[in-house]
């Protein structure tokens, strides 16, 4: 039960951080274009969110990997067999 709760929490937080990293990444990519079109984005804020949330995302992925290691091993074996 405990493990399921941890897995659920990690997965949900991973989902949120994945979304935040992705959106801020897109904003960073299009920012120069937006700037040339005469508008501006809160770049400092976007950069900070992208960096900090991105690292949380990367760190959490190790926890996610640990929680799902048996399944991961199974996938690797299956690829090895084929």
């Amino acid at each position, binding site marked *: 039960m405990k493990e399921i709760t*941890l897995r659920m929490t990690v997965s949900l937080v991973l989902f949120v951080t994945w979304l935040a990293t992705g959106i801020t990444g897109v904003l960073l990519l299009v*920012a*120069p274009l*937006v*700037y*040339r079109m005469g508008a*501006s*984005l809160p*770049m*400092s804020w976007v950069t900070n969110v992208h*960096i*900090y949330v991105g*690292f*949380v995302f*990367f*760190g*959490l992925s*190790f*926890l*996610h*990997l*640990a*929680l799902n*290691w048996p399944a991961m091993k199974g996938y690797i074996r299956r690829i090895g067999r084929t």
Partner: protein
Amino acid sequence: MQRRLIAGLVLFVVFASMPALVSVTEKYVSTGTASVPASVSNGGSEVQEGVYYKGTASAGGSDVLYVTPAEIYVSKAGTVVTVNVTVKFRHAQPCMYPDWKISAEASGGVKIIGETKTTLKDPYTAFKQYTLNVTGNGTLKVIYTYGSGCPYGSSESVTVHVYLGIPGYVQEGDNGTSIPSTATQSQEQNVTRITGTLEEVSVGGHYVKISGRTVYVRGRWTAGNSSLTWRDVLESLRVGEKVSVTATYEDGNLMATEIEVNGTIYRRG
């Protein structure tokens, strides 16, 4: 399972805290290597060969432009002074928009006679120095222009005020208006006279505050035939009294040499 979880947790903590750790380390390292002026606004001041350099001005959004000094007072026309310009970048250089530049416009009695090439002191700090010839009151506007297309900003600018005269503020009564003094050449260099209401008397700090300016009182004093200590002088002053203080700049601080209050004149020495 338990071991894997602990390893995963450790890696999570390591990576999640990495940006914060890097940011703290960066701040620690940059204070040690980059020469960003520690003082902003009217924090620091110094006198060099009769030229009074006052404070550091800054302007910044993503990148910060620092110009030292913020104000310059020269005692005679034709004096050559230097202005140091530092830009602290948010991102390491070279960045994606490398055509940023530092430029300056002089006006009034200020003429740019020299400028160094902009150099990177470290990936986050650019430095440039301007040499000015001062023939009268004027300004130097220093502009830092972000690289073209940079989404973090367009430009930052700071204006350095240059005065022909000595620093000091002439108070006209107590109306609170103060203008920079442009004292005549006959006045003794570095001497300033401040007239106003005593705002603070600090015996512990050895100073008085008049119209927002701090004047230190030290050494032996005389009043008529009496010999006094600095403490005696400070203890005789009351907040709210109207005073006229003559002071000189010593190591960047105003040091009182004469205090006139309620008809009594205290003289240092």
